[in-house]
């Protein structure tokens, strides 16, 4: 609840390119570093560079950061910030940490310009397409005037970029789905979708990490666990990864077992 289901990647209207990110508050306990509202590999690289900088040189009082398509939210403990950076506090603003955080982030961004985002990993994800694992595969084929095999070929031949994780633990927002196999959401969402289900909705594809309700067209299922609460990091995919799906038979899928169990 409380969210656009499965985080659609929308078409954007204003691609004003100012270059410099803005810093704005996200409530009273976080700040956002905001790039122009574009879903593009270029913006993604800048977001990753900021994250990389925040990881290697966090400011005192920083709690964590959350990258998304064109912004990085930075959570902070105001008390700790004020205590650590008295030199940044303007007179009369002893109880007002946000300007200090904004100044610290501005400093950090200065140093980020030169920095390269780390090289991407490629993660290969086996998918058992169709059948009970992908009950909507035939619909997607029909909708696009393709054969089932053609949908599988198109889906498993692209490199997908993980822009961000959200919606559910380890849920990847992927870019790079071919328009040739796009399909609308189901008119009535399923109440239960098994974890590992691979789906298509509009211009995006993704994998459900948890058993949830959902409206995507399901074309297959992977035996890999995308959310691994006992591992570190607790997810299979990271922002910046390249994902490649590859088809496996039902037999191979069953033999791989279910990591989640």
């Amino acid at each position, binding site marked *: *609840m*409380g*969210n*656009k289901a499965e*985080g*659609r*990647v*929308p*078409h*954007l*209207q204003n691609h004003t390119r100012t270059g410099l990110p803005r810093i*704005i*508050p*996200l*409530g*009273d*306990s*976080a700040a*956002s570093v905001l790039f122009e*509202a574009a*879903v593009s590999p270029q913006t993604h690289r800048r977001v990753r560079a900021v*994250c990389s900088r925040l990881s290697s040189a966090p400011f005192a009082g920083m*709690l*964590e950061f*959350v*990258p*998304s*398509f*064109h*912004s990085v*939210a930075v*959570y902070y403990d*105001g*008390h700790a910030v*004020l205590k650590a950076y008295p030199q940044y506090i303007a007179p009369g*603003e002893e*109880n*007002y*940490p*946000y300007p200090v955080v904004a100044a610290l982030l501005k400093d950090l961004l200065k140093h980020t310009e030169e920095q390269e985002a780390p090289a991407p990993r490629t993660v290969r994800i086996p998918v058992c397409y169709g059948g009970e694992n992908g009950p909507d595969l035939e619909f997607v084929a029909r909708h696009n005037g393709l054969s089932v095999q053609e949908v599988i070929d198109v889906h498993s031949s692209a490199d997908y970029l993980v822009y*961000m*994780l*959200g*919606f*559910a*633990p*380890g*849920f990847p*927002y992927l870019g790079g789905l071919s328009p040739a196999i796009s399909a609308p959401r189901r008119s009535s969402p399923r109440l239960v979708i098994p974890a590992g289900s691979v789906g298509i909705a509009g211009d995006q594809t993704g994998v459900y*990490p*948890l058993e*949830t309700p959902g409206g995507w067209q399901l074309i297959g299922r992977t035996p890999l666990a995308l*959310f691994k*609460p*006992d591992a570190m*990091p*607790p*997810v299979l995919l*990271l*922002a910046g990864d390249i994902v490649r799906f590859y088809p496996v038979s039902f037999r191979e899928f069953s033999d791989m077992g279910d990591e989640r169990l």
Partner: protein
Amino acid sequence: MSLLIMKPGLLTTVQDLGRYGFQQFGVIAGGAMDSYALRMANLLVGNDEQAAGLEMTVLGPEITFAAPALIAVCGGGLAPMLDGQPLPLWRSAYVPKGTRLHFGRLPGGCRAYLAVAGGIDVPVQLNSRSTYLRAGIGGHQGRALRSGDVLPVGTPSRRAAAWTERLARGSGAWQLDLWAGRLNRGLETGEFDNRQEAGRLNGGLETGQFDSGQEAGRLAGKLGAEVIAISSWYPAPALIPEYPKAPVVRVIAGEEYGLFSEESRRRFLSEPYMILPESDRMGYRLSGSVLELEQERSLVSAAVTFGTIQVPSGGAPIILMADRQTTGGYPKLAQVITADLPLLAQAGPGSAIRFRLVTLRQAQEQLMQREFELRRLRLVLEHM
């Protein structure tokens, strides 16, 4: 030491202050809905504020203590009782082995927090003991509590052990309120050998003959009777929130505030909104005036947080609560200030709420002030 869950109540889960550091992986923060009440409960039993307690919703559980313990219940809506006698909220109490904690209803609030000295010692998963229901991790087996569950309790702090001992003896620097409930039962069942002494203690308690707990405690000790003891001290009234049924909740403007029509913004800040029944730990759905953007806008998913007020295209706002998702794509109209999140957490379905706009600076000054007060209380407690 452990807690035995006799009845689970409506929704009782293990919660701490949340699971931080993993939101970049899509793992929600979770944690107590009213974190202030949990922090206070922890402070009152000598715990670290981060310790895990039980979040109890609307209908409280029934719990038996398998060993003596120091406990506190904070929050609202629930009326705790120890062996049938009321335990005031926001106070610590010593409970002997076998004491039964159960709950009635109180007006004001809908969530209470039980802290036990030593904290609920379920395994830490991803830096937290909080129950994350949808992913089935954290807490007790990743789920809400059920009858028959046994929850381990950790080792109390040295401070907690000292308080416990003093309270149990009915002596020390504190005035104690002792009561006769257990004693009465003990007399009836012939649990006490010295009926005369027991009768004297009982009578004394009933007539208020003892002006300090000390004497009563001494008598109880002589009898070998274990007595529930409630601390007479409690946090300053200014530190104990009231939870109005129809709270005014302060907000600061969200990223897309300016994209909403002037009329919508005016209505949002002047008309009441009702919390709908289909609200939960993840989010509050509101009914009231429909809110519209000046012009329809497509947004890209970005981070959202506790208290973010999003408005989907239908125009009915949703306030994201403790179990919110890490990211969302709806326009962010406003953000409830952190200092007022407890009011919201305690306003249950059916409550009417109103919003008042403040500046970020005012919000942060409020928050810093509250943290300052908590820090001061912690210091006082450390020297007690």
